[in-house]
């Protein structure tokens, strides 16, 4: 049984302090990373107007940012597995901050695509909560990991809630260019916050029967394991739901006659309930079956969406739906990352969870895209809402057969 006593033989209070520093610093990185990104939309109008661009220029930069985050996540995870999470977080944070600050001086579309798109996208991959959670997997005892993943996810959720008003206040006080530089400056903190997460690269990561596999072997082992395949397929749905609702819920509410003020409150309720849901999910993930939790979360999403579109849309139903979706929003993250660690240990957790996250990003892309093109094709969101219900049920079903135990060791390290 693991305790909070570190491997180095530190005393209990010392080990507890070390654990506290790891969790607090990881959470602050998650908060900054998620928060600054969520305020990016505020700069669309001033940047486009200042440079005489259409909104498509900024939109393409965000598209680059998102796709590079998704594609970069397994590589950043692999680097964290190899060299330790602290270096990747520090490097990613600096890249992210540089991208945000230089966005202020991007006066040509290609420069904007390089700064807000490439630099921020790659920086996100390095300084995201995915790496933080992988770092927790290395540094914390098993019984604390789910709780820590929950608090890191909740911190990210809180970040997006706090940074948007701050970005707006920065713009009001100093103008949009200085606001971007100030937001970028927050990332100067990341290398310092990453210090408690240093170490834990390579074989120091430990991690059970799969610890001796090379990255390539670990990847082959994972994709040859049915439960991992099911997890990857299920997390695709999470991305689809979140991205579709984030982008298309406000216009949907406007279409059905809900006031912009109430629509904004609905987003706020989702954000706040998400903090509660993420943290609760982390706690529950340490007490009950993660597979069962994920089945419940996806099925509950399907039920919530179905009720929302079947019942008359009223202010009460909007807020109830927002609260339900908020509780279920990022609550998938702690049990999903926990299952990856359970199946394959922590040695390749960054890369393997990064791969699961890539599936999430593909789902997110489709959620935004299909929401747009189907709305244009049929004039409403009904089809995509029902698609979301079906996907929720699909995801609940595919999580059910997942074997919640260590994956069988199919490859021997000597076969490398």
């Amino acid at each position, binding site marked *: 049984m693991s305790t909070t006593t570190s491997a180095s033989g530190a005393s209990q209070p010392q080990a*507890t302090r070390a654990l506290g520093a790891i*969790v*607090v610093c990881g*959470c602050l990185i998650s*908060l900054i990373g*998620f928060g600054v990104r*969520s305020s*990016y*939309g*505020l700069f*669309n109008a001033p940047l486009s107007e200042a440079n005489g661009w259409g909104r498509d220029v*900024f939109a393409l930069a*965000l598209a680059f940012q*998102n796709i590079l*985050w998704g594609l970069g996540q397994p590589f950043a995870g692999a680097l964290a597995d190899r060299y330790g999470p602290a270096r990747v977080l520090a490097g990613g944070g600096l890249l992210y901050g540089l991208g945000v600050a230089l966005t202020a001086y991007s006066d040509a579309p290609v420069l904007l695509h390089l700064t807000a798109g490439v630099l921020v996208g790659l920086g996100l991959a390095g300084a995201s909560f995915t790496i933080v959670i992988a770092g927790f997997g290395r540094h914390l005892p*098993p019984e*604390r990991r789910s*709780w820590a993943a929950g*608090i890191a996810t909740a*911190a990210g959720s*809180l970040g*997006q*809630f*706090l940074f*948007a*008003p*701050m970005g*707006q*206040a920065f713009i*009001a*006080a*100093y103008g949009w260019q200085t606001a971007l530089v100030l937001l970028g400056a927050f990332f100067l903190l990341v290398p310092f916050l990453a210090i408690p997460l240093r170490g834990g690269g390579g074989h120091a990561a430990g991690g059970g029967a799969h610890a001796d596999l090379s990255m390539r072997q670990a990847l082959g082992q994972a994709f040859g394991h049915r439960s991992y395949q099911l997890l990857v397929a299920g997390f695709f749905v999470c*991305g689809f739901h979140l*991205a579709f*609702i*984030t*982008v298309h819920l*406000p*216009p949907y509410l406007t279409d059905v006659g809900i006031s*912009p*003020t109430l*629509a*904004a*409150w609905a*987003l*706020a309720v*989702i*954000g706040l309930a998400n903090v509660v849901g993420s*943290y609760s999910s982390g706690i529950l993930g*340490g*007490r*009950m*079956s*993660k597979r069962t939790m994920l089945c419940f979360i996806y099925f509950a999403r399907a039920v919530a969406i179905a009720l929302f579109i079947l019942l008359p849309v009223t202010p009460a139903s909007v807020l109830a739906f927002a609260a339900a979706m908020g509780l279920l929003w990022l609550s998938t993250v702690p049990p999903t990352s926990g299952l990856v660690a359970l199946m394959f240990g922590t040695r390749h957790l960054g890369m393997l969870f990064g791969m699961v996250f890539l599936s*999430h*990003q593909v789902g*997110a892309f489709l*959620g*935004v895209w299909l929401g747009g093109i189907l709305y244009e094709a049929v004039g409403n969101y009904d089809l995509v809402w029902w698609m979301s219900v079906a996907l929720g049920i699909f995801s609940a079903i595919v999580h059910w057969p997942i074997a*919640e135990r260590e994956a069988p060791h199919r490859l021997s390290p000597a076969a490398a």
Partner: protein
Amino acid sequence: MDRPAPAVPRPAGHGMALALGAGVLAVWLGAMAFVLREAALPPETDGTVLVVFPPGTPDGRAFAAVVEAGGRPLRQTDVGFAWVARSDEPGFVGRLEAAGALGAFGELPIGPQLGGCMAVNADTGGPQTYRLQP
């Protein structure tokens, strides 16, 4: 083993989470107070402004403060303690502050931005919790 052994986080874990959340909120409130102070209009400003009074200020008191500062209350905003007021006499903002206002602003957009892991809503014409502008 089909499921992990039950492990109950110790209360200290929840305490740490609460302390972290409270600490972050305290820093955020301090930073927001400072930045909003920076965003406030200078005392010599006149024209149409958004006046912010201390939360809980009675409507009658806020109305009287605007009149006392030589201005005309144009309308109350969604937030009871913020009013749109106008005066063409220089020094209007300074007089408002002397009459009890926290500050006056040209515009104060406040609203949530929701982000999934991938999507960021870049629609700046989207909903705002409070659209506070003169």
